[in-house]
């Protein structure tokens, strides 16, 4: 699946999103710019026609005056012709280029005026006949120009007519504005070439910049594909600038990969530790049982089997606790909450552990005078407390003073366990709550404190650990205790008091104090 994705990435340009996006935007751009060009062209063309039309109308009036005032004699035609020619020269768009020369005709019908038609530049008689025929067959209104196609000419003439006098003939003035037409054609051509260039340039720019941008997304895809094939070290290379959406995507993606690979590594080391921690008991079970099988000494055999059973107990505890911790961390621990008095629980667990502390000449003092009610799963709480105390038994050292403080404030119950032992090594401090984290000299399986934190979290609480300034360590857990009215936290100093206030001084031989209300 992932190799297919890679193939698609390196595949044809035509299938890329960059291509499609560029094409779409280019089509819209091309259509709208063509529309604008055409509108501009239409405007220019209309202006030019209006101008030549107004010239035609004005000139026809002049010619009408000339026709009325000039006697119809032999020179009439020449006069009219000259006037027409002069007028033609005034025409702005007249070009010196012969091909682009405008064609103007003047025609007067009625009263046998000779010559009835004057054309500039001069054309042959057949062309003249065609003009006259066209004029006669079309109905040209007065004082407004119309287009009149004439056979033999590519372009139609703009023609105006004017009555010379009532009853007499009409004067027709026609103009074929070739220069303007050529100018418009050139304009159109220019527009078209410019438009094509613009569209192509725009399309190329769009494709290239989109391709550049989307290539960065492809990099993300490639990295994801690599992750899919098991290479967790794959990351997306990216620059800080521009700090745009894709840079943010890339950063987020990389952060996500960091987290995933961290938790996968954690999982790996977890499985490694579990496997390692389980292998030793399994090996010793196997060894003991094998030896028991091969010995004839019934007592030795019994002893070996007993050892195997003890190893199995240890094994089953590792499995149960690590699953509990994993479940609690995943938020899937099934709790049977019931109203519980934490002070009572602490007293009971402390009583249970009292002999163990006194055997190590450690002093265990609990300050849990007032009942603190909370909704808790007592089975887990008892194990949490016993884990905390066993942790002290193991690590606080011979003769250490251990203080368990229960306090309550702002709807939270806090249990703090303090000692004056060696404290945690700095390197271990921030990972004591991790599964299978344990000191070099530790004999535990590294699950005790992980379980403590997991239970606290499962109850909506938290756990912390810190080395005290005065030496020693504090491990604390906190639970919501909403049933209780908020009251100020009982003052607890950071220094470990030799004997807390209101606590009887321990009698000789009785070095465990359990205070109760």
């Amino acid at each position, binding site marked *: 699946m992932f190799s297919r994705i890679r193939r698609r990435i390196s595949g044809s340009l035509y299938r890329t999103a960059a291509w499609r996006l560029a094409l779409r935007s280019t089509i819209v751009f091309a259509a709208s710019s063509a529309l604008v060009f055409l509108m501009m062209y239409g405007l220019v063309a209309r202006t030019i026609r209006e101008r030549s039309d107004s010239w035609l109308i004005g000139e026809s009036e002049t010619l009408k005056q000339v026709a009325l005032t000039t006697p119809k004699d032999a020179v009439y035609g020449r006069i009219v012709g000259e006037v027409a020619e002069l007028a033609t020269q005034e025409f702005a768009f007249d070009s010196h280029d012969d091909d682009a020369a405008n064609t103007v005709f003047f025609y007067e019908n009625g009263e046998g005026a000779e010559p009835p038609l004057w054309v500039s530049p001069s054309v042959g008689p057949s062309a003249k006949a065609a003009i006259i025929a066209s004029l006669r067959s079309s109905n040209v209104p007065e004082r407004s120009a119309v287009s009149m196609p004439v056979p033999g000419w590519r372009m139609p003439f703009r023609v105006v007519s004017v009555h010379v006098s009532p009853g007499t003939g009409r004067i027709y003035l026609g103009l074929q504005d070739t220069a303007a037409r050529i100018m418009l054609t050139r304009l159109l051509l220019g527009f078209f070439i410019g438009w094509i260039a613009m569209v192509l340039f725009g399309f190329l720019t769009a494709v290239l910049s989109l391709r550049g941008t989307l290539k960065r997304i492809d990099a993300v895809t490639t990295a994801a594909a690599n992750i899919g094939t098991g290479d967790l070290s794959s990351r997306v290379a990216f620059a800080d600038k521009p700090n745009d959406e894709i840079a943010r995507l890339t950063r987020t993606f990389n952060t996500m990969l960091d987290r995933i690979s961290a938790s996968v590594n954690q999982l790996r080391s977890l499985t490694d530790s579990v496997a390692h921690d389980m292998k030793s008991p399994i090996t010793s079970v196997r060894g003991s049982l094998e030896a028991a099988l091969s010995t004839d000494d019934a007592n030795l055999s019994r002893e070996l089997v*007993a050892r195997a059973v003890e190893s199995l107990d240890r094994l089953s505890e590792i499995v149960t606790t690590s699953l509990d911790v994993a*479940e609690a961390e995943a938020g899937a621990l099934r709790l*049977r909450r019931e109203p519980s008095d934490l002070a009572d629980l602490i007293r009971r667990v402390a009583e249970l552990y009292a002999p163990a502390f006194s055997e190590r000449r450690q002093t265990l003092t609990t300050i849990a005078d007032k009942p603190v009610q909370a909704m808790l799963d007592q089975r887990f709480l008892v194990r949490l407390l016993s884990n905390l105390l*066993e942790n002290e038994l193991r690590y606080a050292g011979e003769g250490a003073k251990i203080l368990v403080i229960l306090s309550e404030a702002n709807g939270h119950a806090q249990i703090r366990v303090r000692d004056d032992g060696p404290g945690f090594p700095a390197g271990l401090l921030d990972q004591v709550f991790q599964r299978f984290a344990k000191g070099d000299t530790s004999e535990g399986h590294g699950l005790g404190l992980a379980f403590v934190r997991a239970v606290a979290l499962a109850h909506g609480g938290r756990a912390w650990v810190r080395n005290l300034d005065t030496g020693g360590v504090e491990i604390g857990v906190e639970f919501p205790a909403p049933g209780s009215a908020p009251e100020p936290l009982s003052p607890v100093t950071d220094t470990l008091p030799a004997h807390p206030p209101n606590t009887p001084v321990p009698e000789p031989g009785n070095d465990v104090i359990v205070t109760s209300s």
Partner: protein
Amino acid sequence: MRLLVVEDDRTIREFLTRAVTEAGFRVDACGRGDEAESQALEGVHDAMIIDLTLPDMDGLDLIHRLRSQGVTAPVLILSARRSVDERVLGLERGGDDYLTKPFAVAEVVARLRALLRRSTPNQPEATRLRVADLELDLIRREAHRGGAELQLTQQEFALLEYLCRNAGRVVTRSMVLDHVWKMRFDTSTNIVDVHIHRLRNKVDRDSDRPLIRTMRGVGYVLKD
């Protein structure tokens, strides 16, 4: 006493059968829910051991079917599921009991006995317990060994009382925690060893006949 053992794993079924037979029960064993149902409906069993995962039905469903058909014998539930199901806890409140795998065989037998005691109506409560030359006065909370009074703390007396009540029978660490300290630990802790060690120092130190014995890997037994 006649027992019904319903467990689909043949190895577990066989060692359970052997253990409860040795403990003096008559045993019927089967590995399927439907067989178990027809056997239980005969109404001849005093207690049942039922595994929750059976090939043809859920153990809890089996228990509910039996209960709805009038079978009242107490049930010891065996569960491989770690987090104990709410419904199992409900049954526990209803007078039955459960054990999670792996379990000690001694504990199965002990819990069975406890279940049967619970289901048999009031026996007159003893006020004195005696094992060999050890004597406990349950009313005055005093213990004597060979005529000499033992100076015991309340905890130590409670522990010794529990061992005496189960004299001759193995008790596991978790049974001790459960009955003496009323704390149910699902994992093992060796804190009980410390208490036993202290108690043994007081009960057995001056005697050439030690009563409290450690059963390696299982628990403790008090016997002559």
